[in-house]
């Protein structure tokens, strides 16, 4: 008899789908947090902005295992035809996508790739790229 762990083959399936709606809810309700200690919450439905695309956004993190933002970065959001552009004018970098989250995610990937590239090539950078690398290090740090 084997003493090692035996693992079943992983079954990959499509993501789940709900087919039966709940008929008993008619507005946004938040009951309680389950994090200890319990948190109480307020629900706000008044004075909401008319659109879900702001003119700017404070980006809090890069969602990367090795890199993080030193401080939240102000990101400008502009629309160009059917695309949204999320940009950081200070370093002239941007990301784009069909909606806000996609544009911000693209900007995150741009920042991560730029940081990693400049870090790897830092001994060979010219004056402009050296300046960009310095500015990027003010925004991003390694964990």
């Amino acid at each position: 008899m084997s003493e090692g762990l035996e693992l079943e083959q992983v079954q990959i399936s499509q993501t789940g789908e709900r087919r039966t709606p709940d008929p008993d809810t008619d507005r946004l309700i938040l009951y309680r947090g389950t994090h200890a200690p319990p948190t109480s919450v307020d629900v706000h439905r008044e004075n909401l902005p008319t659109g879900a695309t702001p003119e700017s956004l404070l980006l809090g993190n890069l969602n990367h295992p090795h890199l993080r933002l030193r401080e939240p970065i102000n990101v400008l959001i502009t629309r160009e035809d059917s695309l949204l552009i999320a940009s950081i004018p200070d370093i002239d970098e941007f990301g784009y996508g069909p909606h806000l989250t996609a544009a911000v995610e693209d900007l995150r990937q741009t920042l991560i790739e730029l940081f990693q590239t400049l870090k790897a090539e830092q001994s060979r950078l010219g004056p402009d790229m050296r300046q960009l690398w310095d500015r990027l290090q003010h925004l991003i740090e390694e964990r």
Partner: protein
Amino acid sequence: MDAVSPHGPSPVVSAMVLCDLAITEQGTNKKTLVGIFQRVNAQVFPVPQRMFLYMQMTDAQGTYIFRIEVVDIDRDNILGTVTSNPIEVPNRLEPFDFVFPIGMIIPAAGLYEFRLYANEAYLSSISFTAQGANP
């Protein structure tokens, strides 16, 4: 002036999950998520839905006010927001999690999103698709 002002590094979101039911075990505070989904299939719209939003975060230390925006992506419309009271997170190395039971009306078929903010900084999002009955 508020006694508690939000401050601290922006947390990293390690999990954000939509599900039919989230059960919290008393004592251990362990979570069981039942019926994880990313699509809602309805016969007619608008349709009321109750769901649970589970979030796990780390790399937080300080006082945080979390806000969730419920967004109708296709119509670029915020359906509602949920804002927490200030929450104190003592240890940056220890993950913490929340379960938010949420009830909402889905106005039409399309793409919807929950956007998570901490101290007004955008952290992450999760989306689901609402679709009509099969053609």
